């Protein structure tokens, strides 16, 4: 029996722990596990009752359509975001009471929460969100029918989902790591954490990071090879440029974390000594490898949001993007510099003053291109006609808040200041100040901006404004107090504190936590309201915002093949220019057969066996680990024997669909920007005219 389930025992279920010792903390743990199990059962029941299983399998899980894969990425991100914000708010609430041990969570539970919160938010919320957005939008923006490697795309999603599944399983079976999202040994080594926690962290990160590396290769090749005729690099929309930089960063930055986590797994499972204190191991090497990934990762997270904001500022100012060349140069500069600054994450580890000075100076340098970007966005609004749409509220909130985060970032780049505020809540406030406005606001702006493109109807405006407002207010209330207590000397990751002066700040922060929860609830409410009103909010003609780039020329939602005829591109804002000049597609076009990839179960199989592999490695169920690895390899080999991989959409079908779309676009009444937010907006834009 013991060999069959490895080191798994009944006591690893949180329900058992809660029964044995019903503290508030244990009950919260058991409650969360209960909710997860209940949610999974409810989902299964709903799918069965509505007979949606086959549709889910056929249209979604096995689909290789980049748009559907992108949507699944974003659904995953939103599910994980729900858990992440609840965990964050729970920690803030605990801290509001934690003066002299007054909180309601146990020390272990608190440590588990900050570890899962960080791991989830970075690897399973932010990464899937931006990967999903890039997946959906980049092919549409460059005039392509799909990404270069649709199957690899599905496998990437499968591996990411397997990692996320492991984190979710850790809620129900056993315990997650308490070593933080960065998982520094030796604390996460076998001597200090012999349990399964760090193994959950290791295997979820390993699976997800391999998936992301593959995504990076896929995106880079797509942008290099699939651009429509005339879409030169310097005509690409800014979002594609940021996607390209992100893809390059993914290719070079993710392997170090895969390697580091696997080395840690070797230390833990097979008694290696890469990062132990003895026998020649060196824990500093983990810190180096981790941040060699970790710092470029920051820009993997932020750059796509910069891309979204570039599109949003330009579209909602009714104006060409200011300083395109500068923005491209700045983006590239940031991508390259991001590999030269990783030591600033451990100025305090005792390196020489010269080392710290060099890396501090390099860090400072990143402020130059980042500053240029901010100024360029301001200049894009300057001389524009600014519509304060929901994405624009996120964008303006971002500029203001991100700039303040930039100030504290410049301070932290100074080793002598880092010596003081490193590992304090000042640091926590700083990186949330970069990532909440700089990543989450960007993703939510992109979600609101491109939602009508993907689903064919706009999101409700009123709930949208309320959501954006609550995110901005909630963020401000949660994190600005953390700056203050950080400077007053409050260390991060402490489950209680003894200085009474911290408590008022922590109370304000907890109130902010509630507003963030409210913001998330409103985000869900917005989706419900919008789906209910989808007929009135529909924008079938595809261009609800008077968009400037190619994706807006396609109908909403776009057909599976995106473009019936691959467009010819003659300008940077090609679609905007054509609208202004009143030129549309040439009349006598010939349609051709379109070849699309057939559905395949490879993606879900990778998710399933990846998850099994992870579970097996965490619980030392060796037979299952072996079987999973063999299956995963077998899947690749099996696939290579398959020859019938594509299906053909006949030219006649394409033509009929395209003519119907064009007729619809022609017959839709055009609306000006005054009516943008009304039900009159059916997706055909009357371009904003210069005076």
């Amino acid at each position: 029996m013991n060999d069959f389930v490895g080191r798994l025992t009944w006591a690893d279920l949180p329900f058992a722990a809660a029964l044995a010792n019903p503290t508030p903390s244990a009950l919260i743990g058991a409650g969360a596990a209960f909710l997860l199990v209940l949610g999974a059962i409810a989902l299964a029941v709903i799918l069965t009752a509505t007979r949606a299983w086959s549709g889910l399998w056929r249209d979604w899980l096995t689909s290789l359509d980049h748009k559907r894969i992108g949507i699944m990425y974003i659904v995953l991100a939103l599910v994980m975001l729900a858990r992440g914000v609840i965990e964050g708010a729970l920690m803030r609430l605990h801290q509001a009471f934690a003066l002299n041990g007054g909180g309601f969570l146990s020390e272990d539970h608190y440590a588990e929460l900050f570890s899962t919160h960080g791991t989830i938010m970075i690897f399973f919320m932010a990464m899937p969100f931006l990967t999903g957005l890039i997946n959906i939008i980049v092919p549409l923006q460059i005039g392509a029918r799909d990404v270069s490697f649709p199957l690899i795309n599905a496998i990437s999603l499968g591996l990411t989902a397997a990692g996320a599944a492991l984190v979710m399983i850790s809620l129900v079976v056993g315990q997650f790591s308490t070593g933080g999202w960065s998982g520094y040994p030796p604390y996460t080594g076998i001597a200090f954490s012999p349990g399964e926690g760090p193994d959950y962290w290791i295997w979820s990160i390993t699976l997800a990071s391999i998936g992301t590396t593959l995504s990076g290769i896929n995106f880079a090749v797509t942008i290099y090879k699939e651009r429509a005729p005339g879409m030169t690099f310097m005509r690409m929309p800014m979002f594609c440029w940021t996607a390209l930089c992100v893809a390059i960063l993914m290719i070079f930055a993710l392997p170090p974390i895969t390697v580091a986590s696997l080395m840690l797994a070797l230390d833990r499972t097979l008694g290696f000594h890469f990062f132990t204190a003895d026998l020649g191991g060196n824990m500093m090497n983990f810190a180096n490898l981790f941040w060699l990934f970790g710092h470029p990762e920051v820009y993997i997270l932020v750059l796509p949001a910069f891309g979204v904001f570039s599109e949003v500022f330009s579209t909602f100012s009714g104006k060409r993007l200011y300083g395109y060349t500068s923005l491209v140069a700045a983006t590239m500069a940031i991508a390259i510099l991001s590999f030269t600054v990783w030591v600033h994450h451990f100025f305090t580890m005792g390196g020489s003053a010269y080392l710290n000075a060099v890396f501090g100076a390099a860090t400072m340098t990143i402020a130059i291109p980042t500053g240029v970007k901010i100024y360029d966005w301001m200049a894009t609004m300057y001389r524009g006609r600014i519509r304060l749409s929901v994405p624009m509220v996120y964008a303006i909130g971002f500029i203001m808040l991100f700039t303040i985060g930039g100030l504290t970032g410049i301070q932290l780049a100074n080793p002598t200041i880092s010596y003081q505020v490193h590992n304090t809540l000042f640091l926590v406030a700083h990186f949330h100040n970069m990532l909440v406005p700089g990543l989450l606001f960007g993703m939510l702006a992109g979600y609101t901006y491109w939602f009508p493109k993907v689903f064919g109807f706009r999101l409700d405006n009123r709930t949208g404004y309320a959501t954006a407002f609550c995110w901005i207010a909630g963020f401000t209330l949660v994190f600005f107090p953390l700056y203050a207590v950080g400077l007053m000397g409050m260390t991060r990751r402490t489950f209680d504190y003894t200085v009474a002066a911290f408590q008022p700040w922590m109370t304000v922060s907890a109130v902010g936590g509630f507003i963030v929860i409210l913001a998330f609830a409103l985000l869900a409410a917005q989706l419900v309201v919008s789906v209910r009103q989808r007929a009135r909010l529909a924008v079938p003609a595809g261009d609800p915002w008077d968009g400037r780039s190619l994706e807006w020329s396609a109908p909403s939602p776009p057909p599976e093949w995106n473009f019936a005829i691959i467009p010819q591109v003659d300008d940077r804002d090609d679609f905007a220019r054509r609208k202004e000049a009143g030129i549309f597609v040439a009349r006598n076009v010939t349609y051709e057969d379109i070849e699309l990839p057939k559905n395949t179960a490879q993606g879900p199989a990778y998710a399933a066996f990846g998850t099994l592999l992870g579970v097996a490695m965490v619980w030392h169920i060796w037979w299952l680990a072996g079987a999973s690895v063999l299956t995963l390899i077998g899947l690749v080999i099996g696939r290579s024997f398959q020859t019938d991989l594509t299906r053909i959409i006949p030219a006649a079908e394409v033509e009929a669909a395209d003519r119907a779309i064009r007729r619809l676009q022609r017959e839709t009444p055009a609306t000006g920007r005054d009516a943008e937010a009304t039900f009159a907006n059916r997706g055909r834009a009357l371009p904003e005219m210069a005076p």
Partner: protein
Amino acid sequence: MKCRVMPCGYADTVTRRGLQSALLLTAALLSGCTPQGNSFFTPGGPVAQSEQSHFFVIAAISLVAILPVLILTPLIVWRYRRHGGKGRYVRDWDYSRILEMGMWGVPVLIVAVLTMQLVRNTLELDPYRPIASEVEPLRVEAVALNWKWLFILPDHGIATVDELAIPVGVPVAFRLTSDSGMQSFLVSALAGQIYVMPGMATRQVLMADRPGSFAGRNTQFNGRGFAGQRFVVEALPKNDFEAWVERARDAGHPLEAGTYAVLAKPSSGSEAAQALGASIDRPLRFAPVQADLFTTILHRYMRPGGAPPTGTPGAVVHSKTNGMPPGHAGTHGATP
């Protein structure tokens, strides 16, 4: 601040929020609500003093680039708003050579100035560089244990746990290591932090220029006792310091291999005192101290054959409460 809709439009609201937050932060810094002795905002010595001034100088220089954003963004949004904005709409305007030079030039200049500051400050406050003083520095050897700090004063033959007294006006030269995991040594009001790791030694220098009681702690998460892992640095006038040393000598237990093995097990300072049969009401003090204890600890990780968990005092196998691996204890918050 509640979630409410303002009549004047969202841009204005967002803007105001940003400025409010900035002011809120500044107010927090200047109102002096920082508890004494807890932070470099109430510095007790020259190192923390310099670090505080770096904090403000860097912020002030950076504001040259940052204030225009915070001020101009709301103005631009207001002036060029679609309804009622007075600004002239120029649809195709997307480049200006002068603006471009300013956008790149100003940040380059500011970063150049900041970098010069940074390099000078970093070299000046190098924790490996002795503080210039005519007085001979006090040598302290610090060992990070789970979850307490052992301070050895080799020149005085005493050692203390979670309490260190230093004479005012005398530089203190620390040599630090860990006999547990990775930790970080911070006495914020006196100097910034430095990491410690098993098998490696780091250094730190600081000096108190006024008497006072300064809070110190480990800032790197290291498990169950982390939140409580605090210590106090008492800066005393010279005579009081010597009296403190005398008291430690009189009251101290001898610190040799056996005592150290008990001390080094995972426990808080007072739990360790209990285990050693000492009073738990005040910090543990030891005298005499085994010669070369620090070096012995440092070198234990470099022996051929290694230091297995059973030979690593911070490891879980030694912990009373975590006797079983956490996973098997079902510790979803079950640890009391």
